[in-house]
């Protein structure tokens, strides 16, 4: 009788240990996967923006063709954005494109006809929307990185992470305040 109870206890303990192991294993893997999906969300927005930019450039050319420098800046930044590979390079290029777009929207303030153009207004709203979506997606990325890093550095998750060979913390995206600020243009 006693032996059976002892055996049952041992089995119970093993089951609990296995359950804990699976729990931590899944938590670490799924939070790592979440980071990947968070990045792909950012990537989707970056692509959408790159697709909208040529439209914008055409519209601006129609009203303010002699603003060559600003237009060129946007076109170049877009080229670099499309050609970029890897997370870091893409985010750098995206930052440049953001700055270039801000310049062109600031210049548009000087052209009432351009500003009143329905197409331009819709493009501006869409690009603004994408801009904030990128910011939000990046925020989610950072939240996901935080929860992954917490999972692999706090005890007892750390112990499992070491056995899974996942000791390296993932890097955060830095959001500079400058990127969020609206540029002021003096006339």
């Amino acid at each position, binding site marked *: 009788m006693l032996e059976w109870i002892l055996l049952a206890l041992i089995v119970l303990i093993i089951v609990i240990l296995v359950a804990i192991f699976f729990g931590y294993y899944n938590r670490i893997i799924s939070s790592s996967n*979440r980071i990947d*999906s*968070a990045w792909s*969300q950012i990537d989707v*927005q970056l692509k959408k923006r790159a697709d909208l930019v040529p439209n914008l450039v055409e519209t601006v050319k129609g009203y303010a063709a002699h603003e060559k420098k600003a237009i060129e800046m946007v076109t170049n930044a877009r080229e670099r954005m499309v050609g970029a590979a890897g997370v870091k390079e893409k985010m750098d290029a995206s930052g440049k494109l953001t700055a270039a777009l801000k310049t062109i929207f600031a210049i548009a303030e000087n052209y009432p006809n351009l500003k009143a153009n329905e197409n331009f207004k*819709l493009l501006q*709203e*869409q690009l*603004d*929307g994408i801009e*904030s*979506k990128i*910011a*939000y*997606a990046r*925020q*989610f990325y950072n*939240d*996901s990185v*935080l*929860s992954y890093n*917490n999972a692999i550095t706090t005890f007892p998750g750390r112990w499992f992470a070491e056995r899974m060979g996942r000791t390296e913390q993932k890097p955060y995206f830095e959001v500079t305040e400058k990127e969020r600020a609206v540029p002021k243009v003096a006339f």
Partner: protein
Amino acid sequence: MQRTSFYDQISKNKRNSVLLVLPIAALVVALLYVIGYIFAPGLLIFIVMFGIIWMTLQAIVSYKYGDRAVLSVMKAKPADPVKHVYLINTVEGLSLAAGIPAPKAYVIESEEINAFAVGNDPQHASIGVTTGALENLNRAELEGVVGHEISHVKNYDIRLMTMIAVFVGFAAILSYLLLRSFWFSRGSGERGGKGGGLIILAILIGLILAVFAPIATRLVQAMISRRREFLADASSAQLTRYPEGLASALEKIKKKNSGEMNVSESISHLFITDPKRSPLDELFATHPPIEKRIEVLRAM
């Protein structure tokens, strides 16, 4: 601002909600049991089983078709991709921040500033905003309001509240039946003298349950809903990283809304603030007082 993980919050919340739902379910089952005991002791087990199956069916139906019904009752129309591009962008942006698929955006024709969320899970959710909200709120305020609704979607609040609404409705129907039957049996005189003492005790318990079950379930509903509102406010602040946006939106709501939006009590918990105000709000309000919510947000 404290940066606790959403995911821990959600699982903790799910656990707490189960703890709160259990007593409601127990009350309903107890009510069923007493009814069965008094009227058909031989069929007791069948009555209880039947009641539980009925409750489950009702839950499944409202789970599957609830959102469509609610949207049509509220006369919500899908947001226009050009006219409401701004709302759609806000909803999509905040759902990116929350890491859920973007819910469908709807607009309700109303002067009041309000917003709601419906759906079973983040994959099948809709968010609606009144035209009053679109006209009166600035970007940061609208983001705060939409963030609040997105949090309801993400935290599975809507599903839970639908479940609770089913229980509450069921308790109300049962106790109504029980009270009615007492009324009738008094009129028809003595019912068989066998096992008198036990029957009287059962009737007494039945009476007490019949009177208190609907009140108790309403109280629990209000309690859960109010906790959820605070949590959604906090999550909204975490999404937008700007609690002041929602705080000032709530302030505008406090000033502008008359509290007389034409919405049924049974769906009032879906909105960001109570669409209707009543004198019993102290006890049964599905939302905490606006002043309190603003205070909590400003303290973040």
